[in-house]
Structures are given as structure tokens and as C-alpha cells.
């Protein structure tokens, strides 16, 4: 009896505390919105977590019927989460997600605060959270997701994350601690991720991927990350390749083989997003929507008709009569996919703006630009404007790309014609506008911090 009483007291205290912290952070959030001090995508959660380290768990416990899906991977998190939230919303499931980039525990907490009432209750039925590769363990300690969508794993900001091996080990542990029958929807064509799925016991594992006929490549690039067998370390044999190490493979030594593992529900439908990498995002989102929420492909396709890409992902902004197209480019694989889009462009690509910063969200190390296939950009673009804190590092990289395409004799001249460095982003913008024609499309390839700054400068007026 006494124990039950103290349990009851604790329960009441818990609730009071939750109410107090939500009240406080919601007030702070409103005050900050009123004075225009940021969008409050991380710090309300940060405050709540400082007040109570298990804040996220407490809110999740209070909303036990809230269905939670986590999206992880190096590239495509924001787009995939947005695809899922959009389609679920349309299907009447009422979904919300965290802010793009606010994908640590404090971003999840902020999102919960924003969507809960003053008593900590959440009306919406589904939460789709994109989660940073390294934050998954921390997040999964507080909430047990019903499903995790795993997109890919590439080298990205190694100065922050350490090695890919280390990340897969941590993910493996997270998967092993999930409640039985939780769903894993995995990219079956990324060797390390496929292997994680093979080892996941008691979970409902599904693999997405693309059919061989859609995979353009045959040979593995030197900078690909996972071309050796995750099981036995022998060199994998790829019979078809999408890009980097994503493809159809088998191991000649231990027999690990993904050729029959994957399914693609997006066959034959129109993709609202350009690029092969978005085909993967779509394939993954559709498989999760079907296996976890029972949304058939045909409905998914219909719900998708009015979908708009997330900011900074093929985002179009009209500014001073020029059509700026922003494509966030923050790591080698993402950058190479952005170059695919540029190469596929039907119009001539006269001016391109590349912005390289080394602020903390971008990663302090800029070495990765040497793993990007800039030779393709030099071949396609009339003039490349280079800006940002590390503009000259980028200029050096581009100089060597010119050397590769133009040959030694014309190296110097073509470098001077092709590459223009303006460290200041504002100066670069105004000069590009001077150098371009009205209505011209100008492609911009920024790292994360540069994209945020640029969107502000371009004032966010969109065009269709």
C-alpha cells in the first residue's frame, strides 16, 4: 500500500515536472518567435533536456500511442522524412517531423514540445524523425521507434564522426535493443547496411533497392567506402552499381549476396524528385509506408502529386530576375549526385556558384572536396564562382580539375577564364548577377552553413 502510494506520488510529481518544463519551454519559444529570434528548432529541447535528461522518454511514455519512425543515413534523411510525413498526412494519419538538420536529441525534444499541448499530450498520430548518424544511440535510449529507415552510409565529416565501422557497430547495438517485431527498412544495396539487416534477430527486416536495369555503373570508384565484405573482408564483386558502393554485389569468399534481397515498389511511377539518389529515397519511403502503415504503392503515388522538395534540395529561388537553384552539397557522395543533376540539365549551365565553409555544421576538415568528381563540373559549366571561408581550397581543387579536362598546355588560361574566387558570399552573388542574363538559371552548390546564409540573402521568394 505504501509502495503504491509512493508510486502515485512519483507519478504526480513526474506529471507536474513535465507540465512545468513544457510550459517553460513553450513560453520561451513563443517569446523568441515574437521577437524573431530564430525558428526554435533545437534550443527549447535543449532547455527541456537540461531540466530533465529523460525528457524525451517521459513525453513518449505519456503519448504511448504515438507511432514513431526514425530515418537515418548520410544522405537523403530530410527528403525521405519529408516524403513520409507528406504521404502519411495525406492518408489521414496526421504526421509531424523535426526540422531539417535539427536531428540530434535536442531537435527531437523541440519537435515534441512544439507538437504537444500544455499538458504534454500530442494529438498527431505519427512522428517521423530524421536522426543524425551519431545520435541514433542516444535517441533510441529514450524512445523505442516502431520502425527505422536506414538510407545509406558514406564518408561524411569524419572529423566529427570517426569511422564508418564505428557507426555501424553502434547501429548494430541499437538494433539489437529494439523491441521484437520492430521494423527495419534498409537499403539492401549498401553492403554495410545489408549486413546489419542479415544479423538483426527478431526484427521485421525489409530491404529496398533498385533493379539492375536502372543501375548505370559497373566499376567501383577508388573513394567508395564499403567495397570489401563486411562479413569476411574479401573484395566484393559488384555486378551493377548505382554510385559509390551502392549496388548489386556478392562476396566470392563467404557468399554474402544481395542480388535477390531487395524490392522496389516505385517501379513505373513518376518520381517528383530528380536524380538516382532520390529514386532510392522514394523506394525506401514507399516500402516503409507499405510495410508499417499499409499504404499501397498506388496510393502513395497519388498522395505524392503535390509534394515539394525540402529547402536547399533542388530548391528554386527567384532573385533579381535570375532563377537560382540550390542543391545542398556537403559530402563527396552528395556532391557527386548534385553534379549528376547539373549534367542532366537541359539548359546550358553558364554560371555555377560553389560555396565552401568549414563551420562546425559543415565539418572543420575540407579534405573531402578531393573525393568529388569536379572534372564533370568543369566540363559542363561556363564559369564557376567560388565563395566561402575556404574558397581558395576549393579553387585549388578546381584548378586540378581543369588540368584533367583541358590538358597541360591550356591549363593556366582556362583556369583563369573558368574560375572566379570571391570569398564574400554577397560579393559573389552581385557579381554573378552582373555576369548573367535575366531569366538565366544559376546553380548553387553550398555546404550547410552557406545554404542557410544564402537562403536568407535570397529572401526566400520561390518560383515554380
Amino acid at each position, binding site marked *: 500500500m505504501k509502495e503504491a502510494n509512493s508510486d502515485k506520488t512519483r507519478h504526480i510529481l513526474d506529471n507536474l515536472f513535465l507540465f512545468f518544463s513544457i510550459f517553460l519551454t513553450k513560453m520561451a519559444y513563443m517569446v523568441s518567435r515574437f521577437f524573431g529570434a530564430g525558428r526554435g528548432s533545437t534550443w527549447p529541447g535543449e532547455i527541456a533536456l537540461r531540466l530533465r535528461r529523460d525528457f524525451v522518454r517521459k513525453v513518449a511514455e505519456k503519448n504511448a500511442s504515438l507511432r514513431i519512425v526514425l530515418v537515418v543515413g548520410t544522405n537523403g534523411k530530410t527528403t525521405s522524412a519529408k516524403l513520409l510525413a507528406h504521404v502519411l498526412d495525406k492518408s489521414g494519419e496526421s504526421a509531424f517531423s523535426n526540422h531539417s538538420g535539427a536531428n540530434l536529441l535536442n531537435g527531437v525534444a523541440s519537435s515534441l514540445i512544439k507538437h504537444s499541448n500544455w499538458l504534454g499530450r500530442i494529438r498527431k498520430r505519427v512522428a517521423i524523425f530524421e536522426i543524425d548518424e551519431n545520435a541514433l544511440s542516444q535517441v533510441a535510449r529514450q524512445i523505442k521507434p516502431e520502425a527505422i529507415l536506414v538510407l545509406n552510409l558514406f564518408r561524411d565529416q569524419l572529423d566529427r564522426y570517426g569511422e564508418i*565501422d564505428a557507426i555501424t557497430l553502434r547501429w548494430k547495438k541499437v538494433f539489437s535493443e529494439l523491441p521484437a517485431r520492430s521494423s527495419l527498412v534498409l537499403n539492401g544495396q549498401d553492403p554495410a547496411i545489408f549486413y546489419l539487416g542479415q544479423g538483426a534477430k527478431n526484427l521485421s527486416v525489409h530491404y529496398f533497392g533498385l533493379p539492375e536495369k536502372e543501375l548505370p555503373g559497373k566499376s567501383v570508384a*577508388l573513394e567508395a567506402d564499403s567495397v*570489401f565484405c563486411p562479413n569476411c573482408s574479401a573484395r566484393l564483386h559488384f555486378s551493377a552499381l548505382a554510385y559509390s558502393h551502392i549496388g548489386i554485389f556478392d562476396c566470392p569468399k563467404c557468399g554474402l549476396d544481395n542480388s535477390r534481397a531487395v524490392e522496389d515498389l516505385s517501379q513505373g511511377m513518376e518520381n517528383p524528385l530528380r536524380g538516382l539518389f532520390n529514386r532510392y529515397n522514394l523506394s525506401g519511403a514507399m516500402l516503409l509506408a507499405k510495410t508499417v502503415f499499409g499504404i499501397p504503392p498506388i496510393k502513395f503515388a497519388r498522395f505524392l502529386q503535390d509534394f515539394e522538395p525540402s529547402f536547399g534540395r533542388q530548391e528554386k529561388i527567384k532573385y533579381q530576375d535570375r532563377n537560382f537553384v540550390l542543391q545542398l552539397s556537403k559530402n563527396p557522395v552528395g556532391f557527386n549526385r548534385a553534379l549528376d543533376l547539373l549534367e542532366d540539365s537541359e539548359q546550358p549551365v553558364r554560371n555555377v556558384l560553389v560555396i565552401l565553409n568549414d563551420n562546425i555544421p559543415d565539418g572543420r576538415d575540407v*579534405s573531402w572536396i*578531393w*573525393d568529388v568528381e569536379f572534372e564533370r563540373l568543369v566540363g559542363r559549366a561556363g564559369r564557376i564562382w567560388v565563395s566561402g571561408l575556404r574558397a*581558395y581550397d576549393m579553387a*585549388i581543387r578546381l584548378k586540378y580539375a581543369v588540368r584533367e579536362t583541358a590538358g*597541360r598546355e591550356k591549363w593556366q588560361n582556362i583556369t583563369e577564364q573558368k574560375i572566379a574566387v570571391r570569398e564574400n558570399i554577397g560579393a559573389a552573388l552581385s557579381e554573378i548577377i552582373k555576369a548573367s542574363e535575366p531569366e538565366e538559371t544559376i546553380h548553387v552548390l553550398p555546404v550547410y552553413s552557406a545554404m542557410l546564409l544564402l537562403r536568407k540573402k535570397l529572401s526566400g521568394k520561390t518560383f515554380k
Partner: protein
Amino acid sequence: MEKNTKKNNNAYSILERHGFIKKHLIIGWLYPELMSTYGDQGNVRILRDRAEGREISAEVRIISLESPAKDIAEADLLFMGGAQDQYQKIVSEDLRAKKNELGEAIERGVPGLYVCGAYQLLGKHYAIGAHTKIEGLGIFDCHTENPGTGKRMIGNIALQAEISELSGYPIIGFENHGGKTYLGASARPFGRVLKGFGNNGEDKAEGIFYKNNIGTYLHGPILSKNPELADWLIGKAYEVKYKEALPLVPLDDSFENKARAVLFKRANLKNGRQGEYVPLSGL
């Protein structure tokens, strides 16, 4: 040595010697698909292009798991980059079979650049925690310890090279390592740390310098920001092969100079020129 004399008397070498064909350097790129983190592949591009800028025909030859050991003996300049732990193990096993050729080349003075994981691999051993010890090749007089508990040493780094030809500018790059490397008593460091951690964050030494070979933790890739170092390696390779100095025609390094000016400014090194910054105590 015998092999070399023989090689120099074939038809190709005779034509080469009499100026009928271009001087030729083979850049041996060790295990590119295993040892290429952090854009280290850029170093090979830079070596090749800067050699070709001096009217030398440069050939990049990949030396990997399936390659015969003689490929190492034939190379005029060697490069190996950093790797993840799993891959480093694969390479260290394969290199055991090529160890003699590599050791001989280095003793002959064939220059090489070994970054991060490769630098550790050429040392005596690599200890992880108290119980795991991976044997290295023992070519460099150094060893590495990774307590596994300490913070990784990450950030921009500037150092003063100990090689006299490279004293004009501090060497700059980006370091990112958990292992702490300690040099043997008679070993020379590649340079002295001006800003950053270096080998172990304790003794101000960075890298190792041994018979025209450099082991270092610097990424960036290192040669992209230190063109003088690339030229020095090319010059040494040429000297060892042709027994004469290579006249190094200057190339346009204006982007490189501006890129390092940005970092010198951040690190508070005025222009980065030797003598213009205040030397750290104990150097």
C-alpha cells in the same frame, strides 16, 4: 641494385638518357581502394601534375592486394594514405609479403609520403588499449599507442618542417587521429608543431623524416596546400633516379598562397614566413 643497373641499360633508358624521350617517373600508389580516406587521393594527382608541369612524364601505378612485390621496387616515388581500422588490418597483412621491397626502396632513398594510417603502419607497432598490439613494418623508428579513451586529436595544424629546403613556409594541413605516436631516440620528426597537436600532443614533434621519406598525420590533402613539399618529393625522386638535380620551373601557386594565407591568419602566423612569427618556447 643489380636489377637497377640492368634496367638502366635497356633501349628505353638509352633513348631517355640521350633526350629522345621524356624523363619518366613512376608514382607508386599503395592500396588506393583501402588507404584513401580524407581526400588523400588528391596527393597523387598533385604529384603527377606537378611533375608533368616540369616536362617529366609521370605514370601513376596502383600497387594493391593483387600486385607483385616488384612493383614497389620499380616505383620512383611512393604514396600511401590513411584508412579505417578494418582496412588497415587487410593492408598490414598484405604488406608483410612486400616488406623487403618497400624497406629496400626506402633505404635506397626513393622518396615517399605516408599519411596517417600508413605512417602508423610503417612504425614498429600500434597498441590499442592495454591488450591489443598490431605489429608494424618496423621501417620507421616509432610506435603508436591508442588508449582508446582519450580525445581524438582533430583540427587545423601548422608546423615548421625540419627539412632545410622546406623552411620557407610552415607546412599546414588538417589532423585527425586517436593514436599517439612516439619517435625513437635517434629518429627525426618531419617538423615542429606551431599550432595543433602533432604526433602525440605532448612533445611538439610531428611526423617522421627518414631517408627522403615522410610519415605524417597531415590531411588536407597535405600536398594541396604545401606545393613546395610536392616539388621536394618530385625533385628527390628525380635525383635518385637520374643522379642529377631537377631544375624546378616555378608553377602558378597563387591559389595555394591565398589558401594558406587564410589559415596563417587564423593561426596568428604573420604571413607564415619563418622568422616573422614568434617561435613557441621549447622549440
